[in-house]
């Protein structure tokens, strides 16, 4: 199905450069050129994909990937469309320095809120969105929390973020002490993140 969608897109949108990424585990997707996303979505909507389910932004070291999950509620199909963007500068609160992408809110109104969330969390400037404001964070928040290099601001409106007296250090210390005492994290519970105390062979066996 993905190959077929990719070839349709290539024939109908010049320069879309659609490529089917077939996965053996999980879901396959179609990668398209970022500049052509609006045209690509127009074609897909006319092909029957009437619902935009979600827009996911993912931050990688060298790029940002935005994934559109489209669904066809009449004939029960789903497809993931991906674009790659440069990272831009996501340190401040300036829309101009962010990577730019055309908004698809003219096609599905679901895109309006989804794009606002992606802008707020990952920092992508959706050109053409009617009301691109932060949605979950306050309007004057700086930085984009789901970027991998995000650092929480120390002060927000003269309030200290995460003040020391409100962090439950006792709890943290208790867990740390317990871990040191037990030695083997697996003895306590299955959900320890660190396996440093465990047997390396056993871990390798279990991990496979």
């Amino acid at each position, binding site marked *: 199905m993905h190959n077929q969608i990719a070839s349709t897109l290539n024939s109908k949108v010049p320069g879309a450069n659609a490529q089917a990424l077939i996965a053996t585990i999980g879901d396959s997707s179609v990668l398209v050129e970022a500049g052509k996303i609006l045209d690509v979505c127009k074609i897909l909507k006319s092909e029957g994909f009437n619902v935009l389910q979600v827009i996911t932004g993912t931050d990688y070291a060298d790029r940002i990937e935005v994934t559109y999950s489209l669904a066809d509620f009449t004939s029960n199909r789903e497809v993931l469309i991906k674009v790659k963007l440069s990272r831009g500068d996501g340190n401040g609160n300036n829309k101009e320095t962010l990577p730019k992408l055309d908004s698809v809110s003219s096609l599905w109104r679901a895109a309006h809120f989804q794009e606002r969330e992606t802008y707020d969390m990952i920092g992508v400037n959706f050109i053409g969105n009617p009301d691109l404001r932060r949605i979950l964070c306050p309007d004057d928040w700086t930085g984009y929390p789901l970027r991998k290099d995000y650092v929480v601001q120390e002060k927000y409106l003269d309030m200290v973020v995460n003040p020391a007296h409100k962090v439950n250090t006792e709890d943290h210390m208790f867990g740390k002490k317990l871990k040191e005492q037990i030695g083997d994290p697996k003895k306590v519970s299955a959900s*320890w*993140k660190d396996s440093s105390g465990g047997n390396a062979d056993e871990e390798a066996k279990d991990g496979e």
Partner: protein
Amino acid sequence: MSGGHHEENAEEKILLGDMEVLKSDLLTLNMGPQHPATHGVLRVEIKTDSEIVVEAIPHIGYLHRCFEKHAENLDYRGVIPFVDRMDYLGAMNMEWGYALTIEKMLGTEVPKRAEYIRILVAELQRIASHLLFFGTYAIDLGAFTPFLYAFQDREQILRIFEELSGARLLYNYIWIGGVWNDINDSQLARVKTFCDEFELNLKKYHDLVGHNKIFIGRTANVGILTPEQCYDYGATGPVLRGSGVKWDLRRKKPYGLYEKFDFDVPVGTGVKGTVGDCWDRYEVRVLEMFESIKIIRQVLEGIEEGPVMGKVPKIIKVPAGEIYLKTECPRGELGYHLISDGGKTPYRLKIKSSCFTHVSMLPEMAPGQMVADLVATIGSIDIVLGEVDR
């Protein structure tokens, strides 16, 4: 507020006999963040022309805890208690969706008994969640009694869950590969008794509320959504079904053992007003509770002996790749978009919440309504702000 100056002018103009002056300034009102009818910390900025809403702008984020960032720093098992805290009224369904996502990537086989228990708790949770909707919706519209009835029955479910998992609301019960704890025969017997009693009760409740003249007057022909609007905004769950679309993931993309089960998908038919009004959304939820009872009865008949936990590696490493998996939760479709780089923690876990989508529909539904009808509309889309803000 327009202030005294404007009123003086208005008086002058009325003397002149100019009808234009009856058009007054718009009044901006804040509904929330602390408001009993918003079911949480939702703020709706409404612009009103006397009693009529001209514009409604939802402001969300008051409960934002950024679980997606938390998930990137936790191992795969550690995420489960966090997903509980999104829709805290449908925690079992939240867990199940997450567990399914990871299992599908790992290729884990879940034992039969665990699958049955999962369906059992998920459907009980659906009833508990819809009961809370039933009670609070009646309160929104001015009836207090149904709330007390609904909570009596909901309490029975919460007690069963408490015995099963040790918690009343946030369970951490469905684990990757199965469920945490086995269910025993006396608990199953209690579920059976509950079903028998509740089925009779629910009929009474539906007669009491659903066919009440005042209730119908408040909900019929209010907040109408067409299927096209639902598709445009991506609405799912009872909101979409209320508009007459027969779309239920338990039927359309069966997960677990739902394929084997016999149940109907109720849709709005516009009995009391127009298809897709508040009454239809109410009725869909009530009828869904009857269907859930049907499913639970089949679970009680079919449940098999056996283990409740499948073979899962002690340290879970999901192979590199991505998956978008959605399940049918009480409030609509919940999607997990997991992107893994092969490590011990998710690289990115995006959660698609149906309540977030439904909140975005308020600017579409509100204009032209009376302020009191806006309360009925917000109640009828049944949002939980923990899931909206994550």
